[in-house]
């Protein structure tokens, strides 16, 4: 009895199972498996998008770093140039100042010399005048005593040493 299949059950089992297979296949498994597949694809896509974004971030970060590096180099260059220019300006100014001061000193020296020469000439002229005055005075006062004259002349001459 147990292992003897009934015709009725064989019939209904075949019919029912095939109908269920069709209905579930069309209206249940297809949409369910489709939805699962779609969701998996979505997740996969989202993950790869995140990965891409990360990659992009990394790239951007690297680019930023490079820009910063470039900017730093540029800054250093500019600073170096600026300091060079400043140095050259300072040097130039110093040179100029030295030259100017030299020029002024030179001029002053010349002027001093000229003044000195003028003063010497003046002194000489003065001395000559004094000498003539003295001579005149001597001549007037001591025409009698020639010895005293001689002494006086020599004394004066001693005094009036040219320098």
């Amino acid at each position, binding site marked *: 009895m*147990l292992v003897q299949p*009934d015709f009725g059950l064989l*019939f209904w089992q075949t019919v029912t199972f095939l109908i269920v297979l069709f209905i579930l296949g069309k209206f249940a498994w297809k949409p369910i498996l489709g939805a699962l597949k779609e969701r998996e694809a979505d997740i996969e896509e989202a993950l790869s998008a995140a990965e891409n974004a990360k990659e992009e971030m990394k790239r951007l970060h690297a680019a930023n770093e490079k820009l910063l590096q470039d900017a730093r180099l540029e800054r250093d260059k500019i600073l170096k140039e600026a300091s060079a220019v400043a140095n050259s300006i300072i040097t130039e100014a110093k040179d100029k100042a030295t030259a100017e001061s030299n020029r002024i000193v030179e001029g002053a020296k010349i002027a001093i010399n000229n003044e000195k020469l003028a003063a010497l000439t003046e002194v000489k002229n003065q001395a000559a005048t004094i000498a003539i005055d003295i001579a005149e005075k001597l001549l007037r006062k001591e025409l009698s005593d020639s010895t005293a004259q001689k002494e006086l002349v020599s004394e004066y001459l001693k005094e009036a040493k040219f320098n």
Partner: protein
Amino acid sequence: MKNLSKIFLIAFLFISLVKGVAYANGPAESGEEKKFSPGDLIMHHILDAHEWEFAHGLAIPLPVIIYSDKGLDVFSSSHLYHSPDRTYNGYHLNHHDKIEPVDKSRTIYDISITKNVASMFISVAILVLIFIGIAKSYGKTKGKAPKGIQSFFEPIIMYIRDDIGKGTIGPKYERFMPYLLTVFFFIWFNNLLGLFPGGANLTGNIAVTFILALLTFLVTLLSANGNYWKHILWTPGVPLPLRIIILPIEIVGMFTKPFSLMVRLFANITAGHIIILSFISLIFMFESYAVGFASTAFAVFMSMLELFVALLQAYVFTLLSAMYFASAVEEHHHDEAHDHGH
């Protein structure tokens, strides 16, 4: 999930108790008149019937449909059960609950809605309602996390797809998925329904497992490629004299595979029912409190085990079907590659 499993557990504990009570009512009453026969009780419960008996005297008559030379005959089975000689309209219900024509020369085709068929209709209705409902909620919760019953079945569906389908069959798994999923849930749901008190022993019926195994066999044959036939008819890497032995073995093997599917499911489910019923029968054979408690405890334990077996057998049937499909669609056989290596 945790709550759900708790509810299941409590429900089945309750059911196991009710089951015991339901069986207890039946034979106890009749026990007065005739001696209690566990064999009859068990056979009565695991075999098909033309009425759905929940307890003794509480039965729903089912429609009898008979196709014969006289055309289609449809009437309620209560006419047969209530007539004194169990005969109505030229049909007799024998003691195995099978309908025979009174006139033995007639050939009749009994396509009645029996207890098993009715139980199958219920299970199928549940299957369709649940899974079409789930399919709809996939449309509603598009791009969102699964909710409710959908999240209960989703991991199971995914397990069948990924581990049984993709894992066993390989890249060509998709066309077998509707069959594998339907078979799995059909067997599982019917196994569970069979555990309800008064439930029909559908998946423990040879006719049902025969059709399921036959379908697996047909799907295997219809999707078989050249490699499959080559492997059977001209097994690679076998010396010529051995082929004389191998060929019949391979051909017999084609049939033994679905045959084992048929017997495995039938035997496991029927055996489970028989064991539970035997424990309950012990109570009425010994009529002692001690045996009553012990038997009830064992019957509850067996019911728990049967819950697991219900799932396991559905899984095994599906997995083996997938393996047969895999052998049918396999492109390059491993043995060949192995032989080239030598």
